[in-house]
């Protein structure tokens, strides 16, 4: 048996891949939030100079990948694969943004957990020796997501207090093998824990935090069990987009199972906006939410050694307008990565 497989759902890499470059491109609203200083580009044009929300999202993906490549001092010919995904039907955000790069692509869908899914697969590919450099990229766009999942933007309705605000943003990461370079310069992905689909029977699509919190709790629990670690061994345990309500539920569910993560917990959805001033209700959400927070704020804190080890857990709600209208529940999924700076 391969010794890198740990416990039930975790892989601990013998040669942990590094994140040698990252880029975050966000919209205007994110640029007015508390994390503004950490983003690479803040674009005030909601369509990013294109004709539609969808093409705007693709342009954002293209810029994220381009910026990540140039920041890491590589060229696109150095990249062997891209693992990418977004929230739009048939992944048009990702595919139309990446079609001119001529890099082999794996298109992924894990709702808002796609950031964790793409980074997991990217690090597996690199750690296995199948590639030197690969890219993981995800995106979401407020307007294209509203249009697809909810209502046209100009339609007047009231959002419940439990609802979240889809982040306009795209984050791209260059995941590379550390065989030929000193490892200490870059944060590296030391292990990944892949999540199961967890369904607690919630049907309220306006309360995604409650749909996803059990999946996040299950993942964090399993990661701690598999790695035999305690929450105190992490500087931060960072969930994707549970929002205020989901975060409260997560902490309670883990406490029920003997783990207290209250001190370490942070949620990208809660951190990216000033909920009071920006009126975002429960917080931010979307594939872009945790991706830009990781690419900007989190990697920054790892690079300057403020944090040494974090558990990063993007969370996704698995629904479509069809499954919702047909009365199905909304299961959740979460994927975890332990990212360390030595």
């Amino acid at each position: 048996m391969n010794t890198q497989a740990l416990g039930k759902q975790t892989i601990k890499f013998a040669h942990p891949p590094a994140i040698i470059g990252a880029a975050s491109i966000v919209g205007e609203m994110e640029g007015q939030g508390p994390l503004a200083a950490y983003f690479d580009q803040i674009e005030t044009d909601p369509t990013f100079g294109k004709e539609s929300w969808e093409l705007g999202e693709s342009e954002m993906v293209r810029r994220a990948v381009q910026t990540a490549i140039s920041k890491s001092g590589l060229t696109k010919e150095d990249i062997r694969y891209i693992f990418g995904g977004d929230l739009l039907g048939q992944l048009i955000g990702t595919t139309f943004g990446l079609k001119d790069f001529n890099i082999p692509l794996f298109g992924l869908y894990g709702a808002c957990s796609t950031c964790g899914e793409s980074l997991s697969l990217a690090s597996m590919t690199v750690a296995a020796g199948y590639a030197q450099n690969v890219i993981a990229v995800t995106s979401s766009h407020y307007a294209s997501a509203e249009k697809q999942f909810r209502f046209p933007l100009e339609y007047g309705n009231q959002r419940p207090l439990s609802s979240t605000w889809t982040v306009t943003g795209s984050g791209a990461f260059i995941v590379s093998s550390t065989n030929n370079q000193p490892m200490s310069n870059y944060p590296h992905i030391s292990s990944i824990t892949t999540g199961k689909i967890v369904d607690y029977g919630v049907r309220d699509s306006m309360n995604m935090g409650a749909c996803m919190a059990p999946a996040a709790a299950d993942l964090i629990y399993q990661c701690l069990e598999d790695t035999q670690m305690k929450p105190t061994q992490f500087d931060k345990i960072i969930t994707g987009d549970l929002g205020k309500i989901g975060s409260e539920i997560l902490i309670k569910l883990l406490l029920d199972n003997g783990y207290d993560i209250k001190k370490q917990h942070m949620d990208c959805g809660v951190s990216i906006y000033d909920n009071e001033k920006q009126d975002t209700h429960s917080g931010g959400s979307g594939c872009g939410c945790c991706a830009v927070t990781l690419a900007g704020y989190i990697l920054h804190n790892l690079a300057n050694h403020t944090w040494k080890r974090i558990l990063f857990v993007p969370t996704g709600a698995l629904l479509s307008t069809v499954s919702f209208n047909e009365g199905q529940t909304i299961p959740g999924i979460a994927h975890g990565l332990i990212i360390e700076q030595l």
Partner: protein
Amino acid sequence: MKVRQNDEEYNKYVEIVTPKHSCAKNCIHAFLVGGAICIIGQGIHDIAVNYFNCNEEDAGSWTSIILVLISVILTGLNLYKKLAKYGGAGALVPITGFANSVAAPTIEYQKEGEVFGKGVKVFTIAGPVILFGIFTSWVLGLIYWILLTTNIL
């Protein structure tokens, strides 16, 4: 995980931790916004009757037309949404809310073309209102006709 609540317990717990809009506050906002829209409507009606010599029927039509026009313009400027956020059902129930629900998808789906964009999607929100509105009036008409032919009315 070791400890797992059953779905029913969990949903009850979620209900408790999820904050809700205050119903009383929403009702007051709806009353103010809905009332204001109706006062504007009454104002247009009175001007039509007093200054333009309209009869009741014509004045009513002008009132609807002008309110719809105002709503569509506000929708285009993305302002009706703000009114609805504050006023809730007060902005939704009057004819202006209906106009907003037709204008919003037309703007949103313009990019997908005249037929499959605007044409197909124009009633995505208002469609049920039109369908069930017409159906209900047909049922009422049928009852009225039966009552008439059986000499009850």
